């Protein structure tokens, strides 16, 4: 039955994530962003919640608790409310595990899932984005060519999170125009990780460009085997995740601006007592809610095992549009002070730009 309120279990997880963010991230996010680093112990704290082993079935050494896109959306929003880079980094193993779990062959699952079930620090990542004008995840330029018993991959990937520490990669590439995912080990001589990227936002997250030069992998390392995988489904999971992240970033900007507007006195009264400010705050409030509802709608469809192509697409473009608008308002409400890096609104503004642009950085 349709329901707009959280269950007890969802509330507990939301609060747990919120507490973690409050304790570790909220006060340190600025410093983390400046230094471009997430302290390992913070990530460990999130891994200890066991979200990845939970979704892995018992036969592969996990807890077999199932996989809930709605729950993951709730958690991602909370994490991104703390820091967008932290949200992506902490849920990164799932970005690798989920496609394997959902679309891998039995052999692929047997080989990879136990590694992630046993070691929550096991690092896998996904290389999807390509650094070029008119990039489209549905029309990849990275190629996979079948050669006897193997595939040869060529192409360049950007925004590959934590590529430097990752042991396993899923590389998105097209084989005769059909998109697929290919499992590549870090040791493969055809895969090279360039130096760390510097981007407009996501300062805390280690992002890398990854090059594939005649990278040869065994044919059985094509995800899903001969038939390949449902690439569109992957985008449904990742777009819903980005919408959840966008909601968290926008909410962070909204709450900060709201609190500031109450306290900042100009012309003898709080700036919030002027409609031009308070109406921005009102708009931020309901747009954050709208973003969240769109995310949850898409996640609900995924959870029900239904096709979420349209829902996830609309949730993502809405989140992309609104994350930018709201984080822009956030800076504007603070005026010149919002332009100074000591206030977080400028960081939200930079991160907010990423929601529309990025694809495949996290999965629900």
């Amino acid at each position, binding site marked *: *039955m*349709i329901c707009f309120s959280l269950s007890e279990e969802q509330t507990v997880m939301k609060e747990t994530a919120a507490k973690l963010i409050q304790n570790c991230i909220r006060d340190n996010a600025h410093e983390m962003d400046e230094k471009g680093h997430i302290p390992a112990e913070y990530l460990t704290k999130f891994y200890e919640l066991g979200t990845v082993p939970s979704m892995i079935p018992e036969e592969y050494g996990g807890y077999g608790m199932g996989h809930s896109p709605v729950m993951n959306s709730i958690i991602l929003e909370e994490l991104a409310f703390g820091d967008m880079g932290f949200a992506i980094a902490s849920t990164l193993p799932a970005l690798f595990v989920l496609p394997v779990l959902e679309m891998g062959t039995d052999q692929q699952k047997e080989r990879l899932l136990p590694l992630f079930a046993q070691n929550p620090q096991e690092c896998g990542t996904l290389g999807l984005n390509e650094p070029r004008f008119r990039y489209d995840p549905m029309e990849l330029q990275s190629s996979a060519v079948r050669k006897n018993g193997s595939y040869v991959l060529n192409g360049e990937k950007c925004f590959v999170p934590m590529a430097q520490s990752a042991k396993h990669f899923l590389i998105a590439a097209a084989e005769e125009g059909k998109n697929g995912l290919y499992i590549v080990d870090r040791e493969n001589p055809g895969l090279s990780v360039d130096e760390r990227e510097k981007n407009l936002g996501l300062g805390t997250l280690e992002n890398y460009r990854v090059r594939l030069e005649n990278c040869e992998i065994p044919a059985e390392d094509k995800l899903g085997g001969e038939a390949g995988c449902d690439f569109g489904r992957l985008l449904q999971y990742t777009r819903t995740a980005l919408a959840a992240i966008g909601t968290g970033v926008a909410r962070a900007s909204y709450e900060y601006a709201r609190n500031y507007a109450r306290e900042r006195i100009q012309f003898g009264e709080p700036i919030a007592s002027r409609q031009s400010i308070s109406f921005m705050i009102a708009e931020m*409030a309901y747009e954050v809610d709208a973003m969240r509802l769109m995310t949850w709608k898409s996640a609900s469809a995924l959870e029900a095992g239904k096709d979420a192509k349209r829902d996830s697409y609309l949730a993502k473009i809405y989140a992309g549009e609104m994350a930018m608008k709201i984080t822009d308002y956030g800076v504007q409400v603070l005026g010149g002070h919002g332009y100074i890096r000591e206030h977080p609104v400028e960081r939200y503004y930079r991160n907010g730009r990423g929601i529309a642009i990025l694809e495949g950085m996290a999965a629900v």
Partner: protein
Amino acid sequence: MINLETPEYLANLRSSMNNLAKGVLRPVARKYDEAEHEYPKELDLFRGMQIMGRPKKKKEGAANDSGNGKPKKGINLSTVATIEEMCWGDAGLLLSIPNAGLGNAAIAAVATDEQLERFGGKWAAMAITEPGSGSDSGSITTTAVLDGDEWVLNGEKIFVTCADRCDAVVVWATVDRKAGKSGIKSFIVEKGTPGFRLEHLEHKLGIRASDTGTFVLDNCRIPKNNILGSAEVKQDTEGFKGVMKTFDNTRPMVASMATGIARAALDFLREKMEESGIPLDYEKNPENASALQKEFHMMEAQLEAMRLLVWRAAWMADNEEFNNVEASMAKAKAGRCGTLITQKCCELLGPLGFSRKELAEKWMRDSKIMDIFEGTGQIQHLIIARNVLEMSSKELK
């Protein structure tokens, strides 16, 4: 547990209401846009039908429980879903459906059983607005004075929806000007009461099928027990807040009207796009799409956002959660976005969006009212802002 999948009963309701709208309202939408003030006799079909989901008896309105602590299947959500479909057909006609006036909502909310008995079956309009009192509804000057067993009402009410066709009007009047908002009460005035005169009907930008009119109350005498709620003037403004509470139910309805009109416009645009072979894709990078495709997708996303905010507010009402701010959020968002979507559709339709041969131009005219009545967009933003900023109406004017 969060679950925003449309339940089957609601999907079925939507499709049957859409059929009704398609079969009955759409075909006469243009006719009554042109024949302003003429009663759409086709609507007689709806007499006695619970289109707006208004309960006749109090208890019927209570949501029916689907189990212990589980979310409830309630009347508010069904109502907003129905309204969206009907307004997809025609908003002016929906507003003219017999016995489904705003006054009926007010009566359903606060009437005693005896009053429900007397007025429950009547078509009731709502008269708050006066020439000098619009958004500031607390400043109304129409007076009600108790004289023996009767109230004597004096004043002028404008912009009353269903003014011509209704059987009775819920009139806001003050029993004590000095008491400010706490002195404001609502009274049921029946058509034909001496001193109660329909002065004239307005000619409007849109929703022309709906009869909007002015009433003059000139020493109009009504029975003492025609007052809704208590006659007592308290020191606080709780009573006024009580009457304003009706809006928590009606604002999501108006927001749903905006959603229905916007969807009509979008559906028409989609039809034209499909006819000329312009594909709508939900996977490729939107930045590489044409301007037309991208605008379309963004409007579609806006429409989803509108509907979800509406459904949330209605769902909360069904589950007896206080939804004052969520109701305003739905109205603020849908009122504004509905206006923008219908405007944009006309633009994208080109000459078809300017011609009265098609309905797109009408939808643009109809939609505009949704950001005005039941509290303008600005008033909704004020309500939301005061709530989230925790500021009083004195601190945030």
